[in-house]
């Protein structure tokens, strides 16, 4: 905190100040320059993800807490060095045409009331597989010791072209912005991923106009354990319906 940053004479309840639209949802930001947010050293935003909307993978320079205000979905959190423990079965793909044998890190279900801890620098993505909007409140602790940059909230996207969002956060500076791969040479990307130049160019997302929340072409297929009907019913009954 800057010297005298908490000399507040009056506190006011605040609404979000800016809204950034995307193909399958929008994000609203509270003004992180507001005195009370400056004093607390936090930044806040609210993501509204439409059904079949995918919040593109990103990470922040400060730790954050995410609260699910509404809806349901699932989330992938990529923790460096952790194994890909969700694996499609080799057996199940035999005999089926064009099934991909995929494996990835754990997928976590999201539902109303959940709090998710997001450590600084850990990338994550979210998908809305429900029938109503998935609404996420995110509070980023920019003054946390884990953030060694300044107190400005920074989001590093791994995909897409979140140009508009970043421009508005940065007082509409006219700069070319995009995901972190956009700042590398295309031939470097082709070499690093051993893909052709066209795919490497796609990674940069410079022609992508969908924003930071995109609509999945079809319902997203990921490997994750499904609840049985009994489990779902038990969950709906809640704690009161449990036997001792």
């Amino acid at each position, binding site marked *: 905190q800057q010297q005298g940053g908490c000399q507040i004479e009056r506190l006011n309840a605040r609404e979000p100040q800016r809204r950034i639209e995307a193909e399958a949802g929008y994000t609203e930001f509270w003004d992180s320059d507001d005195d009370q947010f400056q004093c607390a050293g936090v930044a806040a935003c609210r993501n509204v993800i439409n059904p079949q909307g*995918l919040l*593109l*993978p990103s*990470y922040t*320079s400060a730790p954050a807490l995410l609260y699910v205000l509404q809806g349901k979905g699932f989330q*992938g959190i*990529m923790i*460096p*060095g*952790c194994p*890909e423990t969700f694996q499609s079965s080799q057996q199940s793909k035999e005999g089926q045409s064009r099934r*991909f044998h*995929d494996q*990835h*890190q754990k*997928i976590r279900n999201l539902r109303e009331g959940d709090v998710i801890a997001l*450590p*600084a*620098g*850990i*990338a994550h993505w979210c*998908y809305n597989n429900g029938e109503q909007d998935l609404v996420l409140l995110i509070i980023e602790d920019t003054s946390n010791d*884990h953030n*060694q*940059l300044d107190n400005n909230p*920074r*989001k*590093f996207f*791994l*995909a*897409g072209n979140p140009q508009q969002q*970043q421009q508005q956060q*940065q007082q509409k500076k006219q*700069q*070319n*912005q*995009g995901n*972190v*791969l956009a*700042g*590398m*040479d295309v*031939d*470097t990307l082709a*070499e*690093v*991923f*051993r*893909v052709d130049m066209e*795919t490497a160019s*796609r*990674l*940069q*997302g410079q022609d*992508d106009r969908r924003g930071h929340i*995109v609509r999945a*072409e079809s319902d*997203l*297929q990921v*490997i994750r354990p499904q609840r049985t009907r009994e489990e779902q019913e038990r969950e709906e009954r809640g704690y009161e319906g449990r036997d001792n």
Partner: protein
Amino acid sequence: GLEETICSARLRQNIDDPSRADFFNPRAGRLTILNSLTLPILSFLQLSAERGVLYRNAIMAPQYTLNAHSIIYATRGEAHMQIVDHRGQSVFNERIQEGQMVVVPQNFVVVKQAGRDGFEWVALKTNERAIFSTLAGHTSALRAIPVDVLANAYQISRDEAMKLKRRRDESIMFEASARPRRETRA
């Protein structure tokens, strides 16, 4: 009890010895990490270090250090280094050579490719247990993402998304492909 604790604390550790490498790829290079687990006094200083050696034209996977700044000093050879900020803007896209130093801020993505004579460096990191995350290779963040998510995020086919995940099986140091690469820029 100071003489038994602080006064006798181990303050020295060699990180140039190849046999101490933590990552080694005979076709690409090696990396040795020194942190508070290997030299406990570093937890007091809240600093750590790494020593890297890249062989001719080898590539260090694009990566970011998620809890520290990195101060990189080139000790031998040269490399083409690219550093990208949160807006996807290149803030450094140049050749770094022996005797030069560059600061990579926390979470900025860096990729380096050694020149013809290889590249060696030492880096100081501003956290006792600096952690990096790679964006390509066997333990990368992209490999931890489902194929369908990658296909939708990058607007590519599932086939291409699978290639993106699987083509590079090395972890952090990549052998350069056989095809000639353009010279690093000055």
